[in-house]
């Protein structure tokens, strides 16, 4: 039931920004990369290049809508994964070598470079692009895992053979070239094991150059195809993002919370909604653009008790938590009893930054969550939002400097 809106929002993620030919144009680039949307819950992949699919062995359908972590596996360095997570939160680019896994389970090293794409109009992050350049292991002194993997790659039959052999051969050539330049540094050739340690994989200048070429091609393509929509993108942040709406990193954290809630800004007149969760949109039937910037009262209708509104306003003004039961209406006009809990949420400075309002349709059973009491589920949203808001502010303090 929730698949449909998810699928559409993924389509729109690209369509809203770029003209219709962008997918084809991106696919013609010889680079392996994905585009992800941090504003959609779960930070899913919204585009995967043809080269990427070849390299990973997955079909487009298997990849779109998933989080990039699906390519990691047991021996992927956890510290690198953490660095990527951090870069996303801080909305900056990162380059790291990473052990990814092919669909058939074979691990392979890539040089991973991820960078944010900003909206020119308001400086917000709209997408992240993840470029992946395969790194071929260098010959080792000890009989290492890698030579074995290499063998596997090349001996493995099936369709996999063609694509990987393709890049094996390419890499063999480039390898020797790179090797020549490195003979003087022979001591530095790694003998460490492959497990868990990215240092095992030495990145050459060649791979770095390939990453740079890919970045510049992708950026120019994205900029070009955003021109005709009038919603320009850029690889640089154009203006400070001191927007009324929440930033991408907070958006990602909030997107993980799979329940119906909104954040409102108590410092703005009429307490507008600045964030609405996917479940809220499902519950009420509205689109995101229809609710952002509005006061929650649009959910009320003719039978709604006016005094409940006063209670809500009072709670916001005094900075206190409160629980009410209010008759609300969906976009299609159908009414529902909303068991609403709201609580102030403080930022890293300890000041109230938002009010979180957690809705619960009283007629809707909580079967999927076994028997966690509805009140506890509701409070868990408050807790998760408090953690997200507090932490995202701590990082903002540093990146502003």
């Amino acid at each position, binding site marked *: 039931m929730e698949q449909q809106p998810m699928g559409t929002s993924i389509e729109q993620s690209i369509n809203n920004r770029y003209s219709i030919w962008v997918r084809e144009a991106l696919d013609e680039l010889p680079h392996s990369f994905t585009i992800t949307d941090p504003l959609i819950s779960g930070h899913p992949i919204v585009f995967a290049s043809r080269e990427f699919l070849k390299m990973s062995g997955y079909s487009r359908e298997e990849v779109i809508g998933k989080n990039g972590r699906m390519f990691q596996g047991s021996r992927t360095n956890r510290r690198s994964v953490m660095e990527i997570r951090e870069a996303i939160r801080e909305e900056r680019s990162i380059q790291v070598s990473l052990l990814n896994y092919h669909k058939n389970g074979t691990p392979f090293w890539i040089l991973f470079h991820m960078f944010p794409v900003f909206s020119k109009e308001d400086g917000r992050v709209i997408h992240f692009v993840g470029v992946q350049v395969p790194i071929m292991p260098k010959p080792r002194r000890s009989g290492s895992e890698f030579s074995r993997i290499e063998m596997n790659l090349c001996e493995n039959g099936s369709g996999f053979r063609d694509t990987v052999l393709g890049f094996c051969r390419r890499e063999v050539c480039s390898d020797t070239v790179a090797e020549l330049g490195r003979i003087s540094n022979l001591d530095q050739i790694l003998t460490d094991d492959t497990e868990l340690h990215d240092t095992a994989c030495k990145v050459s200048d060649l791979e770095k150059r390939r990453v740079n070429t890919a970045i510049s091609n992708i950026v120019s393509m994205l900029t070009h195809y955003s021109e005709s929509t009038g919603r320009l993108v850029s690889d640089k942040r154009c203006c400070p993002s001191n927007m009324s709406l929440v930033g991408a990193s907070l958006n990602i954290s909030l997107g993980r919370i799979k329940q119906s809630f909104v954040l409102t800004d108590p410092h703005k007149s009429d307490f507008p909604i600045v964030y609405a969760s996917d479940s809220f949109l499902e519950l009420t039937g509205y689109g995101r653009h229809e609710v952002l910037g509005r006061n929650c009262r649009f959910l009320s209708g003719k039978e709604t008790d006016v005094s409940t509104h006063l209670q809500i306003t009072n709670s916001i003004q005094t900075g206190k938590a409160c629980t009410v039961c209010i008759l609300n209406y969906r976009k299609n006009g159908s009414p529902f009893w909303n068991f609403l809990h709201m609580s102030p949420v403080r930022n890293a400075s300890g000041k109230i930054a938002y009010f979180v309002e957690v809705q619960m349709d009283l007629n809707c059973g909580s079967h999927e969550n076994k028997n966690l009491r509805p009140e*506890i589920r509701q409070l868990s949203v408050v807790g998760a939002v408090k953690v997200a808001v507090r932490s995202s502010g701590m990082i903002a303090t540093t990146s502003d400097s």
Partner: protein
Amino acid sequence: MLRIKRVPTVLSNYQKEESEDAGATGGCGRNCMRDCCLPGAKLPLYAFRKSDKVESSDKKEPPFAFLDSLLLGEWEDRVERGLFRYDVTACETKVIPGDYGFVAQLNEGRHLKKRPTEFRVDKVLQPFDRSKFNFTKVGQEEILFQFESSEDDEVKFYPNAPVNINNSPSVVAINVSPIEYGHVLLIPRILECLPQRIDHESFLLALYMASEAGNPYFRVGYNSLGAFATINHLHFQAYYLAVTFPIEKAPTRKITDFNGGVVISEILKYPVRGLVFEGGYSLEDLSNVVSDSCMCLQDNNIPYNVLISDSGRRIFLLPQCYAEKQALGEVSSELLDTQVNPAVWEISGHMVLKRKEDYDGASEENAWRLLAEVSLSEERFQEVIAIIFEAISCAVVVTEAGSLGDEDELRDVEDVDQVRDVDGSGSHKAGIVAGKQECMVQH
């Protein structure tokens, strides 16, 4: 006998009244966790699935983070019930500019304006003392839920499970002086009144809690006696902080592969020397190596802290000597004045500061200077590694010389025993603590 004076942190609302509490019998009226109040008591029960395999990746994401929600929801419920001494989200906090991103928090409410108490710091293992405060004295409203392994192969949740006295439940309780949101205590088999001492079963339980919560920003920590644990009743701590800890960013150098697929590494370029354990074919493999190491340290009377990070995938083990230096008068008054107790969170890079001036002036250098005092010297650290490896019966296979690309990470086999300056700056001079008799390897 070495002692330090410090103001104990209040972990429970019932800790304050400790003195007037001697020998209460019968229903004590506080709804506590002792025989007087337990009959008929009910608490939520979360039973986790004991799996024999570590998830190879995050591919199978559970549809709903149950433990995470339970914990956050119950914790927020206690916020609304006013059980905490202060609102931790009203405490100012920031990431200190610099390469490491140390986190500072100004917490003026945590510190009691109470006279300091003496703590013995030269004995890592001390017998349980019923006359002192322990967690059976907390009120049941401070307990969030019982936490145990499921009997069948499925996660189970019972909102109202009777407390089985004969089974001594493990419980998760709030810390009424939280240092971040969701700060809780995991008390293994609470009724058995175990002293602060790691054993296989309890450590595995803590690892399961980290893994079940499934949130990389929910970390579990442990302080031994002598490494700033204040209550000698076995407990782990945990809380949420959605930033990466500096220690998690530090580079590491692999020392050896161990049984069960566990990899042991050494932390580099970080003020506190320590080991990192990761990998393992099962959670139990990983848990066993770490708890064996912890048990070796405590048996050798070496104070230590443990950080379980990345949802139970990476575990940091940090032997320390700060309290000992403090007792011997070797810590500068400047550092002592900040009254920062370098327990597991501080060592990981999360500094809870009590004075506004320390918060405003917080810098990477200051944090570094404090933590450098906590660390063992390189020489002592290598000694301790040898003791641990001896105990977990694992020959150190040092990787070949020059095996790392980064030149300051290079080291030779012969070099291992020399005092070296890992960060290459030469700025932090860690005092060398001579090996004590108790630390000798026993055969």
